[in-house]
């Protein structure tokens, strides 16, 4: 089923991104390969969203090179993105997923079954005919997750997927992400929530003021952080 070209590893090479005169992101090299989820954490404005958007190819870096499977400018065929505020198409819940399935040329005959599977995966069985824009915020978030999974991605980038959810809804999203990761999809998510990062991530990237302060295995990051910033961030101190 998989297309021959792989999008992994995702490599950032001396990436700089500026908005006007302001530097938003300035990182050395960063490689994201197959494996357990990668969590990107850091305070507001640290550059988490910019890093994810660059990794999706939605933004062009001002300087440096981004490669997917060692290819530059690879179209986002094998990757999917879950926006912090996902926009539902003006269609039914099933229609939204069908659109994503069609975008990766899933044969018409298989779509109905896949729609049912994906809705079941995110706990929205029976919501097929509901207008997507009239679902609650949490339901829309889960539908958007199902829609991004419909593209059968190799890399799934998620921008604060649990930020606007209550703890129960956040947990159900985490469960879905864990199941997806176990199926071999590489997950990269940004989060404010250290709990989410601790429960899901295999490695953690701490961003601060557009720079990578620390990138370690989750175990190391939470038990013996190498940097003062990581220690303080976990202790709940403000990083200014």
């Amino acid at each position, binding site marked *: 089923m998989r297309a021959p070209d792989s999008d992994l590893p995702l490599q950032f090479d001396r990436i700089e991104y500026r908005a006007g005169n302001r530097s938003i992101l300035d990182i050395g090299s960063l490689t994201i390969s197959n494996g357990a989820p990668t969590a990107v954490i850091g305070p507001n404005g640290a550059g988490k969203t910019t890093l994810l958007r660059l990794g*999706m190819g*939605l933004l062009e870096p001002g300087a440096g090179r981004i490669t997917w499977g060692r290819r530059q400018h690879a*179209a*986002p*065929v094998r990757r*999917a*993105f879950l*926006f912090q505020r*996902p*926009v539902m*198409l*003006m*269609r*039914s819940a099933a229609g939204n997923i069908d*659109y*994503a399935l069609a*975008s990766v040329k899933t044969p018409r005959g298989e779509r109905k079954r896949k729609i049912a599977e994906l809705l079941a995966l995110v706990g929205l069985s029976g919501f097929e005919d*509901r*207008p*997507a*824009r*009239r679902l609650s915020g949490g339901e829309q978030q889960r539908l958007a997750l199902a829609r*991004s999974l419909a*593209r059968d991605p190799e890399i799934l980038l998620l921008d604060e997927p649990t930020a606007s959810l209550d703890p129960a809804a956040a947990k159900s999203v985490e469960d879905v992400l864990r199941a997806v990761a176990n199926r071999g999809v590489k997950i990269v998510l940004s989060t404010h929530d250290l709990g989410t990062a601790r429960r899901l991530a295999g490695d953690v990237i701490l961003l601060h003021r557009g720079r990578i302060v620390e990138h370690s295995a989750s175990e190391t990051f939470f038990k013996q952080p190498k940097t003062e910033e990581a220690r303080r961030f976990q202790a709940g101190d403000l990083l200014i």
Partner: protein
Amino acid sequence: MFSSAFWMLITGDPALYRIISLSLYVSLTATLIAALAGLPLGALLALKEFPGRNAVIVIVNALMGMPPVVVGLAVFLLLSRSGPLGSFGILFTPRAMIIAQAILITPIIAALARQTIADLWVQYRDELAAMNVGTAGSVATLLWDGRFSLLTALLAGFGRASAEVGAVIIVGGNIDGFTRTMTTAIALETSKGDLPLAIGLGAVLLLIVIAINALAWFVRRTGERLAGAT
């Protein structure tokens, strides 16, 4: 006066019905053609960045207010015997009227469609980019998902076409039984002093416009509710 206009409608006066059906045929065909040109044009202006785009938008918006007689004159010059398209010999035929009305309302449909599509594009842009949807696919998606709002643009175009008299009278010639529409007949009958027929036609024209708007409103409301557009 009113009673004789009413009487003509009830008895199904053939001359009257020929005028009504020609008017509808010309304006609906013109709206269809203008939609085929105006909707993609509006979508491209909404999506594509190119040099001079803002100038084109201003011009299209300005052309919404084009005087029908000017369009009529331009089409007349194009189609007249000595004009560049004179060899087709379609001046003073319903075809010429359709062409004139289509030209008149294409900017209206394009400008209103551009606004609608641009608003939707702001919302959809990132999601479609993340789903690797190209320009053609995006245009198709925006036209489809915005179809109920775009109906309003088509209605505005149809309303303008069915109400104008300046263009069709110049390129159609108001020939009895061949190119006479409701508006040209009203103009003629009024100047002749045959007010009952003019009033009758005026009432029919109003009723048709109201009926079509009511139908479109119903379609839009029902459609939006079923598709969950809001």
